[in-house]
């Protein structure tokens, strides 16, 4: 075994963070396994709270022991050298404050990322396994929202993803440092990745792309550490991190398989067969739960992906059902996509960046030089050559089968940020100063862009003198006042399901299939129904079986998007009988 260099301090830190995250995920997965195998409702709020407290205690004990080993907190300089990183850190702090005083945001987070763990807590297991491809995906990232949702803390629900940002930042730092041996270059790469608007937004939302990406890069950083030091614990942690990523979302399967190919090749060529076997098992472990559930529910472990290979035919859906070729955040036709990120155009709602999109000015400035230097370095450095090859294949994966959905390309984007370190390292010392200034200016610009929308929302909340959840989302306050356990038939867009759960997450929201006939509006067991906007046909049906509780345009921090809402109470519902009139 070639032992060329001891383990980096950042690797030691990273490996422990990966173990801590995996302990939390495995703990909740254990509850889900109990439910899956025995039918006992184990994934309920109290066990989740107990495990969360135990995990927090483990974190505190670990942190104390880590700091003791490192000579106390005085041994750390918490202020980075890079001004761009300082600006980014300040932005993250402001957005953290915003997150703690507002409510979960992000279309997909509201649509299903938060609804899934909420329903799991109600059902005591990772059910229902809905045929809807969005709800049939692996859910390691969604498990991180369980602690917050188990105590009804909506402000904390999106913070599980912040772990992803910490992990991706340390991983990029570690890989960049290993490639360049230069701390300022490593900080340059970290500033690029944490300054991306899409990363900043996903940090405070319950999207799973950042978490999956962070685990792939943690895996890469730890594998590089293993290759340098020969420390097997690094390889085990690398395998678990890769498994966590594979158990996050189908879009990480091709990236994960690609990287596993590299790991397997290296271990095979080193004749580390036992380690390869153990690593393969450890990769499978964090993702197995979701494949078993899907196999039990549909007979296809990789549902929603249809498999037709020779005699093997597993039912599923065409990939257009779960990777929308024309959905939100998709870079347009090929030629237009080639101009991104320089021509960062606005999509629906007139916003150029959110959890789906936005690479910002710093990325636009350093993309080409970073790629150019990486390609030049690839001729002299084998590790860089491997990374450039991985970049090329990953880019093809993202461009063709993943339809250029920007957030599905986060691993490709992160790799460019790593190449940024090579670019910075390549510059002469004289040139580093103006480049550093350029990085700082573009990071400031990008951060201002990210702060503008929350600042506008804050100004609007002050303007309308309302800090309520109802005004934040723009729904009628009456929804928050329904008795706990009220069943609400949602006839506004399904993305509002989480919103209609109410301030205390105490309502139970139901929906109807798209194919349902209008008469089905009166057939359900719901106590209440809500409609919004142009809903005259549905209102006409509902008026035959329900009384109107509320009609009006609720206060909203987005007045231009406010619509007229109707809230109905079913006349024949047992819930209606015990509920007073408003």
């Amino acid at each position, binding site marked *: 075994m070639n032992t060329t260099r001891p383990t980096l301090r950042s690797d030691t*830190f990273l490996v422990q963070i990966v173990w801590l995250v995996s302990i939390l995920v495995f703990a909740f997965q254990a509850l889900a396994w109990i439910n899956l195998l025995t039918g006992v409702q184990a994934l309920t709020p109290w066990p989740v709270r107990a495990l969360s407290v135990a995990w927090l205690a483990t974190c505190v004990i670990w942190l104390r022991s880590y700091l003791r080993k490192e000579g106390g907190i005085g041994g750390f300089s918490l202020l980075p050298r890079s001004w761009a990183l300082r600006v980014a850190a300040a932005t993250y702090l402001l957005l953290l404050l915003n997150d703690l005083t507002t409510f979960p945001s992000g279309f997909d987070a509201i649509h299903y990322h938060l609804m899934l763990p909420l329903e799991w807590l109600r059902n005591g297991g990772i059910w229902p396994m809905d045929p809807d491809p969005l709800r049939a995906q692996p859910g390691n990232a969604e498990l991180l929202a369980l602690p917050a949702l188990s105590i009804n803390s909506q402000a904390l629900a999106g913070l599980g993803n912040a772990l992803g940002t910490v992990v991706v930042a340390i991983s990029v730092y570690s890989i960049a440092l290993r490639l360049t041996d230069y701390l300022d270059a490593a900080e340059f790469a970290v500033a690029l990745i944490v300054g991306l608007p899409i990363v900043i937004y996903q940090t405070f939302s319950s999207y799973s792309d950042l978490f999956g990406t962070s685990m792939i890069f943690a895996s890469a950083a730890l594998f590089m550490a293993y290759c340098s030091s020969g420390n097997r614990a690094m390889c085990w942690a690398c395998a678990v991190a890769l498994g966590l990523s594979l158990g996050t979302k189908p879009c990480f399967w091709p990236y994960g398989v690609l990287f596993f190919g590299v790991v397997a090749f290296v271990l095979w060529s080193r004749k580390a067969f036992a380690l390869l076997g153990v690593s393969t098992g450890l990769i499978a472990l964090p993702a197995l739960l979701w494949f078993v559930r899907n196999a039990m529910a549909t007979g296809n472990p990789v549902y929603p992906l249809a498999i037709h290979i020779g005699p093997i035919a597993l039912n599923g859906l065409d990939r257009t059902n779960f990777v929308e070729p024309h959905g939100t955040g998709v870079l347009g036709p090929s030629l237009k996509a080639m101009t991104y990120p320089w021509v960062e*155009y606005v999509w629906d709602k007139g916003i150029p960046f959110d959890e789906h999109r936005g690479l910002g000015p710093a990325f636009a400035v350093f993309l080409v030089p970073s790629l150019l230097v990486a390609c030049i370095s690839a001729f002299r450095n084998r590790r860089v050559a491997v990374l450039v090859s991985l970049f090329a294949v990953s880019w093809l994966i993202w461009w063709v089968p993943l339809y250029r959905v920007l957030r599905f390309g986060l691993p490709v984007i992160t790799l460019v940020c790593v190449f940024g370190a090579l670019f910075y390292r390549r510059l002469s010392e*004289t040139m580093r100063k103006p480049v550093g200034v*350029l990085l700082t200016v573009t990071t400031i610009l990008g951060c201002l862009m990210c702060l503008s929308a929350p600042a506008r929302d804050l100004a609007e909340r002050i303007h309308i003198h309302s800090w309520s959840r109802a005004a934040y989302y723009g729904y009628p306050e009456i929804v928050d006042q329904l008795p706990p356990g009220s069943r609400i038939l949602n006839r506004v867009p399904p993305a509002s399901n989480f919103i209609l759960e109410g301030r205390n997450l105490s309502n139970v929201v139901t929906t109807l299939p798209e194919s349902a006939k209008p008469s089905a509006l009166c057939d359900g067991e719901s106590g209440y129904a809500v409609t919004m906007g142009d809903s005259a046909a549905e209102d006409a049906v509902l008026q035959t079986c329900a009384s109107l509780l509320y009609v009006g345009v609720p206060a909203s921090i987005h007045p231009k998007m406010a619509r007229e809402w109707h809230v109905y109470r079913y006349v024949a519902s047992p819930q209606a009988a015990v509920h007073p009139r408003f």
Partner: protein
Amino acid sequence: MPGTSAQLDIASDVSEQDRNRAKRTVGPLDLFLFVLCCAGFLLYLIESESVRYLVSHLGLRL
């Protein structure tokens, strides 16, 4: 120690020699890379709708 920062680094692992390997003279590739950076920034400022979005949110008019 010059070049060291932070919290997670491995100051002792990175040799001073490596760190100071950077050239002090500006070569043609340096200039070319810097021009590429500036061109990218200019293109972004001129073409990106994000900049217009930010300017309008700051209450400014172009």
